[in-house]
């Protein structure tokens, strides 16, 4: 099947029962996308599929045939993406396991709400669970990222 990941087209032989996350991690070796709960709850496996945040543990790879996928590895260009930068500066993580998913959900959130309120941030990250830091610094990081992106576009 054809699938585009981080701008690169792939023609892969994929098992019918393979999940998208298995193709991303095991076949393409992009291990930045994490498998947390495997039950559609925690959001560690969040990637963008056709620019929309989805949980890659609950999509069959075949359902994503022809789609364009972006993973955490696809964000940084010459330097870190503003959202990555902000999570680093604001210490929006502790163990870091949930961070790739948090960051992909934040990218999606900021596409829809470039200047989000606290409520919009909480709602936008409702599908991502962090079990160590708490969410205060994560919310700070999202606000900082929003400002960085706005400043860069002015």
């Amino acid at each position, binding site marked *: 099947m054809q699938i585009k990941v981080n701008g690169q087209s792939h023609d892969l032989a994929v098992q019918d029962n393979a999940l998208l996350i298995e193709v991303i991690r095991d076949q393409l070796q992009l291990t930045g996308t994490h498998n947390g709960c495997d039950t559609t709850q925690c959001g560690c496996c969040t990637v963008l599929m056709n620019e929309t945040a989805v949980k890659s543990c609950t999509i069959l790879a075949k359902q994503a045939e022809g789609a364009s996928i972006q993973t955490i590895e696809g964000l940084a260009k010459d330097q870190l993406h503003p959202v990555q930068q902000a999570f680093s500066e604001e210490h929006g993580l502790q163990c870091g396991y949930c961070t790739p998913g948090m960051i992909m959900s934040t990218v999606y959130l900021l596409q829809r709400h470039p200047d989000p309120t606290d409520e919009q941030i909480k*709602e936008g990250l409702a599908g991502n669970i962090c079990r160590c830091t708490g969410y205060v610094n994560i919310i700070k990081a999202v606000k900082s990222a929003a400002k960085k992106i706005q400043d860069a576009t002015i």
Partner: protein
Amino acid sequence: MNNFQFHTALNTSSAKEVFSSNENAKFLSGGMTLLPSMKHGLIQPEHLIDLCKIPNLNQIRDSQEYLIIGATTKHDTVANSDIVKSSIPGLAMLASLIGDPQVRARGTIGGSLANNDPAADYPSGALALKAQIVTDRREISADDFFTGFYSTALEEDEIITEIKFAKPVKSVYEKCKQSASGYALAGVFIAVYPNNEIRVAVTGVGAGVFRWKEAEVAFLASGTKPVLDRDDLISDLHAPSAYRVNMAQVLFNKAASKIKNN
């Protein structure tokens, strides 16, 4: 997950053909319930038939009397649709309260109705809004569609194509969310139609969605607290039935006052 063969259907007749020519086949829409159920080994289909690539099954359109939503329309699309927000705001609100952003990006209205989870949101909207469930072979009124715990009037090989919602004068959905799953511990949908026709549907409280007749009467006789007494109330580790009943009464009051104050 067990092994199975994946089929992509490009129209409903080819989907049905694959279904009938194979043993143990299932239709797949957004997969937000089906895939987790398969991971848990609760069901082990040998064939999955993906309906989401069938063209025109994900359109939203407005006719005089009805708002019509295609079966594979995602929850997020319904929540953000200008047509839905302007003609049935309660339905857009309902869709925005399902699960979380990633789940809303994949889950579909047809899948939710066909699954008829007793704590799902859409069944209450469909029942309150006098929906007609349109399938590949007939139209089923929401009054006849939901037949109890995870069961519907659909035949094994029947495919929902679209849902026609009767446009109300006013509509509000209020929900108490189970914080881990996002399902309703209680959800109350009120739809108001001309000539004081009130329809109140409740999810998350009984073994399946139901009309709450006492609340429909109480809506017009304001000030009275409607009784909710059924023999199929849900009681589980998330909430006992008394809590769910109380929440339904609280949510009904909230929804009713929103309607009356707007």
